[in-house]
């Protein structure tokens, strides 16, 4: 499998994520995207570096097992309805996602990258995933789908990190994973607290906290 194929698949998951209307499906897609991302460094032929292999495997483990596990538990505990409940409709979301992807293709061309970086699809895919994550965060109401958006955002950052993976010290990459884990953890707490305080996980209720 060539890395470009995996990257294309990642971008496709972006679109599917935006268009899906089920919480369960969204979670599955995030998991799929996470595993795809974990495979990319191996497909790029970086598996010969031991630490990168370790990083890729741990990314797969965290994104493919730990996070869905936490998700399912949260889903079980908070008993929410299965719809995604968006602010922005699915068609509109798809259009916006397409716009973001196009914009990232244009932007990636002009970005002043480090000389010697191979011009791959990596940069546009990273930006597109970033925008998709933001789109999900901004346009979905449920706290759980917001966590999914956050994970997609992190995936975008991870893709960007792959660009420098050979020079990047392992510390930074494990940092990314840790960040992610903490993010899910914190969001989990937030979800539980929103539920116990407002008896629902709709983030709109948080507006009552403003002064």
């Amino acid at each position, binding site marked *: 499998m060539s890395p470009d194929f995996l990257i294309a698949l990642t971008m496709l998951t972006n679109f599917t994520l935006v268009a899906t209307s089920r919480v369960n499906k969204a979670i599955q897609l995030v998991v799929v995207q996470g595993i795809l991302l974990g495979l990319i460094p191996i497909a790029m032929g970086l598996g010969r570096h031991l630490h990168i292999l370790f990083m890729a495997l741990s990314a797969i483990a965290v994104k493919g097992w730990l996070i869905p596990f936490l998700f399912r538990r949260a889903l079980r505990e908070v008993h929410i309805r299965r719809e995604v409940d968006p*602010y922005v409709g699915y068609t509109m979301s798809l259009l916006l996602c397409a716009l973001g992807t196009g*914009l990232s293709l244009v*932007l990636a061309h*002009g*970005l*002043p990258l480090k000389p010697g970086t191979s011009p791959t699809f990596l940069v546009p895919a990273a*930006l597109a995933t*970033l*925008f998709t994550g*933001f789109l999900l*965060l*901004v*346009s*979905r*109401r449920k706290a759980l789908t*917001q966590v999914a958006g956050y994970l997609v955002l992190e995936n975008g950052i991870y893709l960007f990190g792959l660009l420098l993976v050979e020079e990047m010290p392992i510390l930074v990459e494990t940092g990314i994973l840790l960040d992610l884990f903490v993010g899910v953890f914190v969001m989990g707490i937030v979800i539980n607290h929103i539920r116990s305080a407002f008896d629902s996980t709709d*983030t*709109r209720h*948080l*507006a*009552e*906290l*403003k*002064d």
Partner: protein
Amino acid sequence: MSLYLAAILLAALSGVPGLFLKRRGGEVAAGALTAAALLGIGAALRVLLGAAASGFPGTSVATLSLPSLPLGSPGLLGLDPIAAWFLIPVLLLSACGAWYGTRYWEDPHGHPGRVRFVFGLLVACLALLVSAAHAWVFLMAWEGMAVAAFFLVITEDRLLETRRAAWIYLVSTHSGTLILLGAFALLAGAMGHWNLGPLPRGFAASPAGTTVFLLFLLGFGFKAGAMPLHIWLPLAHAAAPSHVSSLMSGVLIKMGILGLVRLVAWVPDPPLWWGVTLLVLGALSGILGVAFALGQHDLKRLLAYHSIENIGIILLGLGLGLVGKSTGHPVVAALGFAGALLHVLNHGLFKGLLFLAAGSVVHATGTRNLEQMGGLGKAMPWTSAAFLTGSWAICGLPPLNGFVSEWFIYLGAFRAMALSRWPWSVGVLASLALIGALALACFAKAHGAAFLGTARSEAAQRAHESPRAMLLPMGVLAATCVFIGVFPVAMAPLLDRVVAGLGEGMPPLAAMAKLPILTGLALALLALALALGRWLKGQQGAAANLPTWDCGYGETAPRAQYTASSLADSLVTGARFVLLPVTHRARVRGLFPKGTRFESHVPDPVLDRALDPAFRLGAKGLALLHLFQTGQMASYLLYVLLTLLFLLIWMVV
């Protein structure tokens, strides 16, 4: 050096046992601080006296340095004479305050353990600050001091007034720190390293030098409470527990002076306008400080305004010395610097004493309002005597210590006048004289209203003398005040040593200021006072315990007495064009008017009249930002997304 470090460590940990002990935590803390004071003052005296014995000027400065640091520093701490001089009041006052606090602040609702712990930290930071020889050590100790003081000011956090005072203090101290950070960065840029030390010739006249001076003036002025920057001082001093006020007013605000003294020591060729600026600022703080003190009814607020006044006196001395240094008159410079430095110590002693005495009054009556006191002298003779001693000293009257430091400044100004006809020296003399006279009026009011006459309230009638643990620290401070006042010669060699670090060719003080004659005069005055007292006692005979004389009217009510405000009224209304007193009075109508009331107070010129309205206006403008605070997390994320997009597009296009 090791003595000094041990003192800091002991001070920092002094409050720790008290956190775990059920009883006697205060005594343990006070004991630790006393030991720290003995060690530290020992170290300081060794620095101040050691070199005097081995000849001038001793260049060996005890330093602490670590082998290698990222910031490239050979020396972190240096216990030079300036540091030693400032260290003495820090440790003396903190030990006295700690003993005082054992009985004054023992109510469990006041978190006595927390207060003791932070008090110890504050003392350690202060002691560290004086000898900081590296910009970062200085700033860290400075910040530690500021934050510790904040926690002490907010001790009684259930009172709205206290919370306001603490916040205003925090905002001003952090503004000051920010300014100082800039100043030290500029210094480091000019020097090429972060070590603090002598600056090259010509730096002072350069634009960078000018900026550094102005930033130092602002940053240290905030801490010292020089007049337009004093906003936090009256509030914080009134709100803090009295032994903390005593430490804050006595030494914490002097750290601003320490900064300026350090700058004076580093700069070999200060421009003339530096000194003149300090003189103007000093005269302003001094006169306005005492004028606003006259209008206060709150005893501790009144004392706080007197701190501003005394900072003014110190700045006058410092400015005079600086003028002398830049015009090449070492005699004037030595007298001005010596006056300022001695006043730093003296003000620490007598203002500490006054705050402790005021705290004792507050402890007994439960109020800080002078109009609720009266006649306390009979119930609290020792507190009354301590307050009188402090008042006597702060007014600059012989034979107490306040007189000696002002004497140096007066002498310096006279010398300056004789050397070359400087108009400012006349200004210095006039403002010093005015300050002294107004201070006398103000303390006549404060002492008279609190301790003389008859009680104006129930609480004042029930007043009782404070326990011995509170009286003894006052006694120690009062004795030190008398000692310096009567034997200023003893301080001369120490002062000589400090002043020698501030400029070249400083002449010795003892002979120049005719200190032995002062001793003679002081002893004569004391003897006269004692003889007079004995004679009066003899006249009075056994009838010592009668009620206060009511001028023969008989059966007068306590309300018929002069109040604190009415005593000062002629002066306050005389100066109403600066003080702008606010009075509320109802018009009296008809033949049988109803009961009515009259109130007057003097609001702070900067805080209440300028800053408060300005900030209110600003807050109104900033309310527009509420439009963006929707409370929806999605919209906040949208802001992030838009910013990111904007940045990306900006970078590409």
